[in-house]
């Protein structure tokens, strides 16, 4: 499984601070950070540790099997972000 960030994300980066595998992007300072409407979790890297869920002040992170129906597009959107804007590996190497 993976965790998924939904559209109510406020980009306060509490999740980025606690993620042990650095799979939440874009990060402050990245070229696409300011224009990003939310943060995304790279499902290929997420280790399902739950730390980001605890850290999120607006409960915008869900396990993929519990994403509320109104956000049913969110898993695909998180995947697309990394497919189109660079994988965690590519983004970290840059």
């Amino acid at each position, binding site marked *: 499984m993976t965790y998924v960030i939904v*559209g109510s994300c*406020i*980009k*306060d980066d509490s999740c980025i601070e606690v993620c042990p595998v650095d799979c939440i992007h874009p990060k402050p300072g990245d070229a696409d950070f300011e224009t990003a*409407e939310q943060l995304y979790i790279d499902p290929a890297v997420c280790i399902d540790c739950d730390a980001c869920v605890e850290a999120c002040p*607006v*409960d915008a992170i869900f396990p993929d099997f519990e994403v509320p129906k*109104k956000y049913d597009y969110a898993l695909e*959107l998180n995947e697309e972000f990394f497919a*189109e804007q660079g994988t965690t590996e590519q983004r970290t190497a840059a």
Partner: protein
Amino acid sequence: MKPRVAIVGAGPAGAFAAAALKRRKGDVEVDLIERLPTPWGLLRGGVAPDHQEIKRLEDTFDRLTLRRGCRFLGNVEVGTDVSHGELMEHYTAVVYATGAQTDKTLGIPGEDLPGSWAATEFVAWYNGHPDHRDRDFDLSCKRAVVIGNGNVAADVVRVLARDVDELARTDIADHALERLRGSAIEEVVVLGRRGPAQAAFTSAELRELGNLPGVELQVGDVTLDPESRAWLADEGTFTARKNVQLLEQFSSRPRQESAARRIVLRFLVSPVEILGGDRVEAIKIGRNEIVRDDSGTLRARPVDEEPETLECGLVLRSVGYRAIPLPDVPFDERYHVLPSEHGRVLTPEGERIPGVYTVGWIKRGPTGILGTNKRDAEETIGCLVADLKALPSPANPDREAFDALLAERKPGLVGEDGWRAIAAVELERGRAQQRPRVKLASRDELLSAAAGD
């Protein structure tokens, strides 16, 4: 004696600043001074009632500020009840976090007709801001026009179009709920100056507009012009690409004739004039085309043809916020901000003013989302903490002296206990109606709840 810091404005920027200060420096006394009897600014008075999940941030603000000893001094207006000079006499440092309190105007004829409003006034009204309670929004017309393509535009469109029974489950102000229940509006037309690729909606907001139960979203032809197509392919943001994909999907949907209401997104159009005798009756709209200017930016240019006239009874403009000058501190009239260097406030000549700082929209202009303020606050508070040792003690550092001054000036001061009493009443009323809260939406109600009456 501990350093004392006053943060003026208890909105998200002020709250993140207070939290950052408490985290970095526990031995600082922090007072959050707020014009309203309630804290958290646009989190309470801006964020749309159907976005309740975002309002959970108030628990974090509470935990990181008031629960850590920051004081809330509500119903106190700096510049009226207490001056900047008096704050400087009593505090080691003052941080301005007053936001952007007014809206940009369109600058077109008819803008001041009754029925033409700033979208932000509508937002403040439906969110129970006590200064806007008596606004008389006439929703007896069939068509409303919303000008602008940003998040505030998306919010007001949803509130106008959404089934009122859904809104009744939120913390929308009761006076607004009652008025919306009697709304005759059948169609909300949204005007965007530029094209689908430049719309400022987030894809989440756009998706939401396309998925409101019982509401049809019409988007017309969303074929991109060659300049926008090239821009989207080469430089377009992830959000812009998702927006265009969504708009293409929406435009190929079959018509929903049976929908109770309709939202119509119109791109490449600008309002030219608002028409009406003693109130808004119609709006004249001119078509635009996208051109690339010398700097490479894609701009809207009016097309030379006869404008179209669209009948409507309500116009809400949402073309940006603007900060207003504060008494006794500098103001940059060009960018409408408090001039600063990383949050250290500067004179018009560019000199630092020791002990005066700024954060949030009044510092950087009305950009970014809630979380942007956290990084902004880290920057300002980083400067403040670095300067703290070198800042002189205020002339009158005694907390009791300032409290005595405030008590004399402002008998209706609302402290943390008062705010918690207001919250308790609102939450209790909410429980009774199975709503998150039922807001007290006038100063009188707020102040009597704060006083425990």
